[in-house]
């Protein structure tokens, strides 16, 4: 199948307007005749479900959590970008577009990114109207701050809880539609398969997580807003329940998976403290505005940080990148932290940590000012580590935070399966090889509030889906396949828990397909993953019953999918013989150790097709054209 992104032509600033005008509309009286399934209730899913419900479609909304208000969008701290230019500091739609394409290291689709920048301004208006309590100035106008090294102040925020407030806005809009009878809500319900009839997405198979009941749901279109796959690494900043099952099973039904190796490692997380560790906690990137990052100059220096004199410390980011210093982008900061730890200069237990030191800032500004800026983060750090960052430097280490890869979608957010739409982190579209801070919330809400309500309607108007019901053979086959996977997992009754496999898998992927990769390591990882996967299907132990609330069984299905996805990630990383954004191949670096892109050969999105039956995935390429932002080497020196 040829990959057609369906990007509209013409001047970039008119493309979305033109596309919208050219879309077909569904008659208002006919909207209620269409059922749309939305899986996932985070920013993308909840905003899509609410907006589609408002338009008059019949919506069924699914989430695995006990309530749509729990989706992991809730944990985003920093903020949401929008090209409002309220501070009059030179921002514009074009600048946000430009920064995002460059920040993504020239591996995103220009048309999509431009649309995202255009829509960013509507998102803020919408959220304010919903009652999202953004930070305000004394004049009563909205406050902005600069974030993630941006040179303009375009980030809107609600204390350190921006994701929470935006999600609650979308959740409340969703609950309003539940009350209005437009949306039927299915919490604690997990999608386990996609049903395709005559080549189009026509429904899903789900498991009720309380009763274990497997059910089929028919629709005229299916939207997946099920988030990213960072939990493939076991330890990540994702919620424990975050998983790739919905997108992976859709992939196995024909949706191409794009750029799986593009993962983002966030530089400022609290380091691992022991082998019981269940997740990693992010400390907001804003800390790098005032904190200075350093390690001892010599390896094995076990002195307390305050006993190490100034001239025996290496402020390595300031030394290597004098113009950006501690504010270099996430990928660069993470890689350098790994580098100094690999040299044996890391600090803390296990030597996997670097100092983030506020003593200079406290001397310069006073403790009160620092408390005002970061008080809640310092408290959180102390709660977890029992160290007081006002007195002793924080210890931080990079952790997996976001996945830029995801299901391939065209400009209309439709996957390679007609009628299957993918939104937010679950798709691959807007961030290229590296996502900038405060862009994830923007993308989720853009897709859900302002793109899907148009494009899903266009699809329905053109495709005119014929009636279908659950007695169709495709539903029967999908349901039987879900039942059989469940039975298989329950019947192994081996010796090892699901978590023990997941932890081991995560370590393999982290070591060889994490912050830096090389061909040898990736091939090694593929071998290890296959071996471990084989053992998994022989030796995993899932207790309890399938027809009951069974958290081990839930995890077992998700980990089975992580096994398959992780292998594809390594394949993709192996195929991409260049370094770009979060994907750093050691063989492809500049003499001073920076990422070296290869635009001649790799200026494309890699879209992988599942072939089934043990056959290797087939690679399709969407070539990326840059008409407006010309690819250049990123430099932060």
């Amino acid at each position, binding site marked *: 199948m040829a990959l057609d992104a369906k990007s509209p032509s013409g001047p970039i600033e008119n493309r979305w307007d033109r596309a919208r005008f050219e879309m077909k509309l569904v008659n208002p009286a006919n909207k209620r005749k269409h059922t749309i399934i939305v899986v996932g209730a985070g920013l993308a899913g909840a*905003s899509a479900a609410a907006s589609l419900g*408002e338009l008059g479609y019949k919506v069924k909304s699914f989430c695995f959590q*006990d*309530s749509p208000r729990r989706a992991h969008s809730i944990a985003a701290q920093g903020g949401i970008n929008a090209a409002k230019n309220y501070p009059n500091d030179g921002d514009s739609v074009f600048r946000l577009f430009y920064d995002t394409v460059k920040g993504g290291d020239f591996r995103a689709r220009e048309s999509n990114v431009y649309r995202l920048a255009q829509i960013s301004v509507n998102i803020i*208006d919408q959220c304010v*109207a*919903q009652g999202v309590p953004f930070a305000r100035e004394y004049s009563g106008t*909205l406050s902005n701050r600069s974030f993630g090294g941006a040179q303009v102040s375009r980030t809107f925020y609600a204390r350190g809880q921006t994701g929470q407030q935006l999600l609650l806005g979308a959740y409340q809009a969703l609950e309003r539609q539940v009350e209005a009878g437009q949306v039927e809500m299915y919490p604690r319900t997990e999608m386990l398969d996609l049903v395709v009839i005559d080549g189009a997405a026509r429904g899903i198979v789900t498991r009720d997580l309380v009763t274990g009941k497997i059910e089929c749901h028919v629709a005229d279109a299916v939207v997946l807003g099920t988030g990213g796959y960072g939990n493939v690494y076991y330890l990540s900043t994702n919620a424990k329940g975050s998983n790739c099952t919905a997108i992976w099973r859709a992939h196995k039904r024909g949706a191409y998976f794009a750029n799986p190796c593009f993962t983002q490692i966030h530089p400022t997380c609290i380091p691992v403290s022991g082998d019981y560790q269940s997740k990693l906690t992010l400390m907001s990137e804003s800390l790098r505005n005032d904190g200075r990052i350093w390690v001892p100059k010599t390896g094995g220096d076990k002195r307390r940080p305050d006993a190490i004199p100034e001239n025996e410390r290496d402020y390595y980011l300031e030394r290597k990148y004098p113009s950006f210093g501690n504010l270099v982008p996430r990928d660069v900061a993470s890689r350098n932290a790994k580098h100094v730890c690999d040299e044996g200069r890391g600090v803390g237990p296990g030597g996997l940590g670097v100092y983030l030191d506020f003593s200079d800032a406290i001397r310069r500004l006073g403790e009160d000012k620092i408390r005002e800026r970061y008080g809640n983060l310092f408290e959180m750090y102390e709660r977890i580590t029992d160290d007081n960052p006002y007195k002793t430097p924080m210890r931080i280490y990079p952790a997996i935070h976001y996945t830029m890869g995801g299901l391939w979608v065209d400009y209309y957010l439709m996957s390679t399966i007609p009628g299957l739409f993918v939104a937010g982190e679950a798709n691959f579209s807007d961030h290229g090889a590296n996502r900038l801070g405060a862009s994830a919330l923007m993308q989720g809400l853009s897709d859900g509030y302002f793109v899907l309500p148009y494009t899903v309607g266009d699809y329905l108007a053109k495709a005119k889906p014929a009636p279908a019901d659950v007695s169709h053979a495709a539903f029967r086959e999908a349901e039987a396949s879900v039942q059989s996977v469940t039975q298989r997992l329950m019947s192994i009754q081996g010796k090892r828990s699901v978590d023990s496999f997941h932890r081991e898998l995560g370590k393999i992927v982290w070591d060889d397909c994490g912050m830096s990769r090389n061909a040898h390591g990736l091939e090694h990882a593929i071998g290890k993953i296959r071996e471990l996967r084989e053992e998994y299907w022989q030796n995993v132990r899932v207790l309890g019953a399938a027809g009951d*609330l069974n958290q081990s069984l839930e995890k077992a299905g998700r980990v089975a999918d992580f096994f398959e996805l992780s292998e594809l990630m390594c394949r993709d990383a192996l195929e991409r013989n260049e370094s770009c954004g979060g994907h750093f191949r050691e063989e492809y670096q500049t003499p001073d150790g920076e990422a070296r892109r290869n635009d001649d050969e790799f200026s494309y999105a890699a879209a992988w097709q599942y072939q089934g039956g043990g056959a290797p995935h087939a690679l399709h390429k969407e070539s990326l054209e840059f008409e407006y932002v010309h690819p250049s080497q990123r430099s932060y020196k």
Partner: protein
Amino acid sequence: MKLILHIWRQKNAASAGRMVRYEAGDMNPDMSMLEALDVLNERLIEKGEEPVAFEHDCREGICGSCGFMINGVAHGPQRLTTTCQLTLRHFKDGDELYLEPWRAKAFPVLKDLMVDRGAFDRIIAAGGYISVSTGSAPDGNAIPVAKDNADRAMDAAACIGCGACVAACPNAAAALFTGAKITHLGLLPQGEPERHERALNMVAQWNIEGFGACTNLGECEAACPKGIRLEVIARMNHDYLAASCHRR
């Protein structure tokens, strides 16, 4: 360190439950309470016993999934801390802890430490929003909001919907939860037009769900991991009363 954990085990909503005693040795004081349960569960699985079911997701104190009673206190002894961020260093070696699910008629137990908090969603659905459809919003700066009001709205909006307030309340009232949303939206000019209807509808739903009435005991405020203050209940009562008079 070693802890003696007495945990409520209940197979499903229909079965009776009971406390079961577990000895949890070799625990690390830096672990969170949930990580301690993870370790206990791994050991149970090894022995062929079903692991303890408990609700959790983000494990950073914001999603509101987690929470149970620890020695009779919702989310345990550490103030302003959810169960997922409560570390074992707040306990002593050899301590005996009693872990039980939230107890409230409106929160039926599903299994072990998990309860059904769907009633909270239905209270929000009854009116916990501003009725603005996508696309109909004016410019974000068109309506100024006094910083003070925006800040106080944010204080109330910090609620994570965990249910500790209900669990801590001897009446199992949903006053702090409902009041927080009424306060958040009512303090903003955008929320003003629906202020009266919102208070009436949300409180009506709270009664339908079987939560008890508020008698201003203040246990909810003490248990709230996000520091939501009792004044939100006063605002709710004010709006409810004003709305009731207005309606007559």
